[in-house]
Every structure is written in C-alpha cells, then in structure tokens.
C-alpha cells in the first residue's frame, strides 16, 4: 500500500524543506496513523498529578478516545490504568471522585484496589460463591499504563515499549536541572482550558518559535524584543525558544512571586519555553512555571489545558490571578493564528509552506521529528504485512 503522504520534502534541511502536507492536519486516516506513531508509542502528556492531590483521588480521562483512570494510591504514588473492568470491559469510574476503599465496577461489582489489584469477584462461582478456579485474581488486575510524573505532568506511554522517560528526555532534564525543585500548583485560579479549532500540532509549531512574537504579542515589544530571544533545538526530542529579558510580574506595592530557591542567578532575566514532543508545552521562569497539555480531540480540534506553578505553596492570591489572566491573554492571542493555519490546510494546492531558514528552525525540528516517527511507524507496518 502506498504511504498516505509523501514526507520526502519534510526531512531535509530547513532551507529546502516544506512543512508537513495538509493531510497531517485534516485527514482522518493520517490522524489515526499519527495517533499511534506520535502519541501512543511515545511519552504523551495526559494530565497533571495535582489533579489527584490526595490518596484515593481518581480522575477518569481519555487519551484519543482511550478511557484511562489516573489515581493516587494509598501509597502516594500516581498510577494510570485502563478505566475498564477486566470482566465485561465496563467503564469503572465516570466522574472525578475519591476512592475510599476499593474501585467497584458498577456492573457486576468486581472490585479493585487503588493499586489495580483485583480484590473481589462477587458471585463469580455462583450466588454467594465469590471464587472460581478459572478466575485467577492475580492475573486479572487492572491494566496499568506505563506512566511517569515529571514537572507535575503525568506522561504516559500507551504502547508500553518506548525507552524510559528519563532516557528519552535526559537532555531536557539536564538542561533544566536548576529547576529540579518542588513545584506548587497555584490551585483553581491557576488553571484554565482553551478550546481551539486546530490540529494539535499547529499549537506546538506556534509555541516553539519566537518569530511570531512581535506581530501576535505586540505587548512584548517594549521589553522583550525579537532579538532578545534564542532558539532551542534538540532534534528528536524537543524545541522551543528562550528569552534573555524575563521581567517579573509585580504587585502595586512592588511585591513579586518568590523565586525558585537555588535556581541560580543565571535565570534572573532568562526564561525558556519548550515544546516537549509530542504534546506538552512547558515554560520555566525564576518565579513561576507552567505546563500546557494539548489534548487532541480529532484532526481539527484541540483542548489546551494550562496549569501554572509557583515556588512556594502559598502565593498572593491577587497577584496569582493577575498572572493567570496575563497568560490567558497571551495564549488567546495565538488562537486566531492556529485556527487560521488550520483553515489554510484545506487549500488543496498548499505545499506545506516554506520556512525562514533563520527563524523557523524550531518548527522545522518538530516537523522532522513528526516525519521520522511517522516513517518509522509506516516501515514497521510494512514489515509486518
């Protein structure tokens, strides 16, 4: 079978490359392919651990229509399971809630511990007989999805066969070692979602380059000019941009958020904004950080889940709210761009576009990663035919 798209012009130098073909943004077949090549088989961002702060807290979610359950066990560890019973595949948890004892399937009441162990199979051997030789509880626990928590983001590898998270992201973890410090989610006023009519990849592409900043975020021009930014590129792993003139938000009395202790003077005026492939956008600054998880809801719809973090658990509420509003304003300024590019992908003659060899290399870095993963996936499928 011929490949769904021709990626030969993507995987070349930025001077010569075209962007990904239209089908990667609008075609259901390519979306299905990318679902496996880019999200299920990699370490994808699912949610944040702060959503399950206490033991027993459970949140049902979907990753590309796959029902998953994020739960903090009684041991304090966050785990991710398929949110279905091993008996009849019934959804176990419909709404976020606290599991006080065991997870009981609402259908026939098979029960699981918060670590996923099958602990009760009522009437499985007939009325009042709760065991049967054929039902080995040790073999029928909830299916756990490989997960890893870093910077509060819960990352999952659905296929189970990606290299370890810390190996895949070793370079970024080392790059931001200064910020390997406790993060405190700002709470309900420090999270918001944006529903955007775009393919999730366009949100990545827009985030990781600084080229658009003076045009789309003119408010930055007075203190953070284009020349104050630098590219960040790690082929195969991440790309983004940095700023050398980070300016702290100040309250009327001049107060600022407390710094991350020990982050170091290097970060006094420096900040970095990195897209961790596939779908997580992170930002670090001396006094706060953020994580954006891009939830793909089809080829042309994305929900952006934004979370803001601070260096201490208790920050000034008014200043925190101002910060949330400020970031929301910035991210909303990007919406017409990513929605406009999405509409543009319906022009059949569009060739994927050409890049600025100087300004667009972080985006090209992402396209190269997408193309390489899709080509690897196609090659594996072809070999299996």
């Amino acid at each position, binding site marked *: 079978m011929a490949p769904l798209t021709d990626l030969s012009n993507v995987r070349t130098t930025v001077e010569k490359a075209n962007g990904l073909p239209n089908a990667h943004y609008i075609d259901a077949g390519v979306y299905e392919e990318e679902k496996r090549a880019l999200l299920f088989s990699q370490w994808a961002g699912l949610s944040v651990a702060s959503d399950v702060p206490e033991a027993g807290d459970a949140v049902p979610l979907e990753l590309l229509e796959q029902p998953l359950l994020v739960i903090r066990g009684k041991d304090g560890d966050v785990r991710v399971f398929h949110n279905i019973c091993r008996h009849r595949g019934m959804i176990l948890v419909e709404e976020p809630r606290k599991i*006080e*004892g*065991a*997870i*009981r399937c609402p259908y026939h*009441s098979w*029960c699981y511990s918060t670590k996923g162990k099958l*602990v*009760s199979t*009522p*009437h499985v051997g007939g*009325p*009042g*007989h*709760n*065991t049967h030789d054929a039902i080995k*509880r040790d073999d029928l626990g909830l299916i756990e999805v490989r997960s890893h928590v870093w910077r509060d983001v819960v990352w999952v590898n659905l296929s189970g066969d990606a290299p370890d998270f810390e190996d895949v992201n070793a370079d970024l973890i080392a790059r931001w070692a200064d910020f390997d410090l406790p993060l405190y989610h700002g709470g309900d006023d420090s999270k918001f979602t944006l529903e955007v009519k775009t393919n999730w990849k366009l949100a990545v592409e827009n985030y990781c380059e600084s080229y658009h900043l003076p045009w789309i975020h003119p408010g930055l021009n007075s203190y953070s000019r284009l020349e104050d930014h630098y590219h960040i590129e790690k082929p195969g792993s991440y790309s983004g941009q940095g700023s050398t003139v980070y300016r702290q938000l100040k309250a009327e009395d001049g107060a600022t958020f407390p710094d991350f202790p020990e982050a170091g003077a290097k970060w006094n005026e420096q900040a970095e904004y990195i897209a961790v492939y596939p779908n997580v956008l992170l930002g670090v600054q001396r006094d706060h950080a953020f994580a954006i998880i891009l939830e793909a809801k089809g080829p042309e719809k994305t929900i952006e889940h934004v979370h803001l973090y601070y260096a201490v658990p208790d920050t000034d509420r008014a200043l925190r709210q101002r910060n949330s509003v400020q970031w929301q304003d910035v991210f909303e300024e990007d919406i017409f761009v990513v929605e406009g590019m999405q509409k543009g992908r319906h022009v059949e003659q569009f060739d994927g576009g050409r890049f600025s060899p100087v300004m667009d290399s972080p985006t090209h870095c992402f396209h190269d990663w997408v193309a390489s993963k899709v080509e690897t996936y196609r090659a594996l499928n072809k070999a299996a035919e």
Partner: protein
Amino acid sequence: MSDLNARMIAAHAQDDTPGLIRLYTQAADEANSLDAACFFLTHAYVFALESGAAEATALRARLIAHNREQ
C-alpha cells in the same frame, strides 16, 4: 423480611452505604440457608470494601470460613 427488603431498597435509593452494609449483614444473619447467607454477606462485604469500612475485615473472614472468599 419484607420490611428488611424495603429498607434495603430505600438504602440503595439513597446510596446509604453504611445502611447497606448493616442491612445486608442482617439479612445474612436471618437467612435460612448457607447459600442465601453468603449471598447477602457478599453484598455487605462488597459495600464495605468499596467504602473502606472497618466491617470489611470481619465480613471477609465470615465468607472465607465458608470457603466463599479468598
């Protein structure tokens, strides 16, 4: 039993888990066969297990004693 049955239905309707544990245990105690008793004990146990109620330990022990649980 019909009164007990009505109270069980009411407890189900109100999601009254402590009530369900208590009423199913009572039904088990009043049952006239081992199978019927274990049927009700199973329900009491499952609701105790789900809610993290202390009764779960004793209910499980009763089921194990009759070789109905592991």
